[in-house]
């Protein structure tokens, strides 16, 4: 029984990482209707920016974080302006290919700047030890990640609920034309969305990087597991992203613990296929009614 609880808690903690990344994807999809396949590379880049600010520029951690926030916000703006805005109104394939192309470009940039080896941050950003509760082993690192993502979700919920721009973003998600007709500058909302998502992605990159090390070969692969989480929860739902991320984490951990650790690598994708066949819109997603 305690083994089961151990797997469950591990799953929840790891799942909170997926939930965090899923949040960044959902943010973009919600208001711009673009699924960001470049998420993995964007978060790796965010991690590397913090690394550079700490190692090359010798910033303390807090200044490094501030630097990363500013750089990734502007990166989000630049990406939206140069790559996505010219494609507004193009067919869906164009948007998919644009984000895939973006992921390749960022990958190239990471190769140029930091090379292929996996590196770790010079100093611990998250506490390293573990706590024992009863006979359940809790990694402090994962606990921190869990709390940070919970805080991020609460902040996002408050942001959407109470700030003006958050309300604009929700309105844009309802329908671009209607939002534009009510006087919202939809293009600006897109830019803000990408900036916020880039920021969340950078946060995810820092969390993942401090746990698994920074490397272009490994981090994007972990981020890809957030895709099943997004679809499971529903593409439009922030709550769905949280629940989807946790579910994927729990299922992965249980399968890894009880069946086969190797098999757990593909369980998220099998879950994804099952969701796509039986409930394509996900748990909390909107069911689209198509008219001609």
């Amino acid at each position, binding site marked *: 029984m305690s083994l089961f609880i151990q797997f469950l808690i591990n799953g929840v903690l790891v799942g909170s990482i997926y939930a965090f990344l899923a949040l960044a994807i959902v943010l973009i999809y919600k208001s711009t209707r673009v699924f960001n396949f470049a998420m993995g590379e964007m978060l790796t880049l965010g991690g590397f920016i913090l690394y550079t600010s700490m190692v090359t520029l010798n910033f303390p951690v807090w200044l490094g974080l501030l630097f990363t926030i500013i750089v990734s916000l502007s990166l989000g703006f630049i990406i939206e302006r140069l790559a996505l805005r010219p494609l507004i109104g193009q067919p869906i394939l164009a948007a998919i290919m644009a984000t895939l192309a973006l992921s390749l470009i960022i*990958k190239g940039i990471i190769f140029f700047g930091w090379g292929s080896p996996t590196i770790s941050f010079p100093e611990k950003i998250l506490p390293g030890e573990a706590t024992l509760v009863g006979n359940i082993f809790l990694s402090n690192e994962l606990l921190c990640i869990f709390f940070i993502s919970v805080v991020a979700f609460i902040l996002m919920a408050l942001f959407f609920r109470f700030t003006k721009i958050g309300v604009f973003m929700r309105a844009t998600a309802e329908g671009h034309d209607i939002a534009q007709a009510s006087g919202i500058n939809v293009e600006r909302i897109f830019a803000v969305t990408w900036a916020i998502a880039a920021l969340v992605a950078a946060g995810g990159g820092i969390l993942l990087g401090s746990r698994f090390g920074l490397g272009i070969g490994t981090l994007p692969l972990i981020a890809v597991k957030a895709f099943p989480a997004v679809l499971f929860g529903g593409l439009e739902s922030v709550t769905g992203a949280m629940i989807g991320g946790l579910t994927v984490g729990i299922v992965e951990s249980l399968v890894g613990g009880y069946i086969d650790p190797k098999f757990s690598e593909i369980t998220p*994708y099998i879950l994804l296929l099952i969701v796509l066949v039986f409930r394509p819109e996900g748990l909390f997603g909107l069911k689209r009614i198509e008219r001609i």
Partner: protein
Amino acid sequence: MFRPCGVFDDTYGKGMAIVRTPQHWTFLIIALFMLFSLPFFLSGRVLHFVNLLGITLIAAQGLNVLTGFGGLISLGQSAFIGVGAYSSALLTMYAGFPFYLALPCSAIIAGLVGLIFGAPSLRIKGFYLAMATLAAQIIIPWLIMNVRTDLTGGAQSMRVSAPNIGGMVFNDQQSMFYIIIPIACLTIFLIRNLSRSRIGRALFAIRDNDIAAETMGVNLTKYKLLAFFICSFYAGVAGSLWAHWMRAISPDQFNLMESIWYLGMIIIGGMGSVIGVTFGVLFIRLFDIGILFAAPALTSFLPPQLAQDTGAGLSPFSFGMIILIFLILEPRGLAHRWEIMKAYFRLFPFKY
């Protein structure tokens, strides 16, 4: 459609013909003759590249049927190529199939696997379908790596024998050329014909609007699944040829990156255009080779480790840039440019 002065389609047959005029026939025969005499005056390395082009072309044309004609996005083409490659390798190495039987069998196996992952397309499209095929792209290499590793060699490479047809062993680039290129030519011809047939028109209708197509009597289930089957069938052909041409296959040859390359070729060439995709394949593969040769020269002034990293990043970076530039500036691809050029020469002294 423009016809040269004095050319009239006075029968239905002439109206439907792909090759219309005697000049066309002459050019076609000369071009084919030149193509098939290539092995006599090209070196092994260049022929290796030509063979690679042929195999890529087969897989890209298959993807063109699915994505270009049908508008169904697949991020799993290279996984289906992997299915073809491994089933062909297993059939020849362990089941004792000769190459000429293993090729169609592995194509059909790949087609059936494609059907399995295409099944969700009946309910979903767009991003969702891209996700389903992305799942295929991750699950299939995993299966190759972890199931029956005693046969496939797992993550290690698997040896494949050279094709042996009636005592003739095809074990060098020259001889493989005569297997790969005829199949590639046949593929182009078949898919060009497919685009003008009932199936092709049904797929075009689905691409433009699937609900509208359904109300007009296009059987969505049938044609979507058929598109998936055809797409993975050609992937299987390409995979089988790849296995017997490379003679050593491993799961990492069939990664997500390759699938993105195939989509990129279609975009750059022009979606749904057979000649366009041919240009796209040529363009991307030539570009890739160009990067390979240019990278050492471009990075020679950097210290060795940095030079290596920069070289490794050059290919994804420039490929991503090219796709993005084409998406923004010329979404109709090289095929559109080709049409403009043809029209220019046809009308030559006049503008229009």
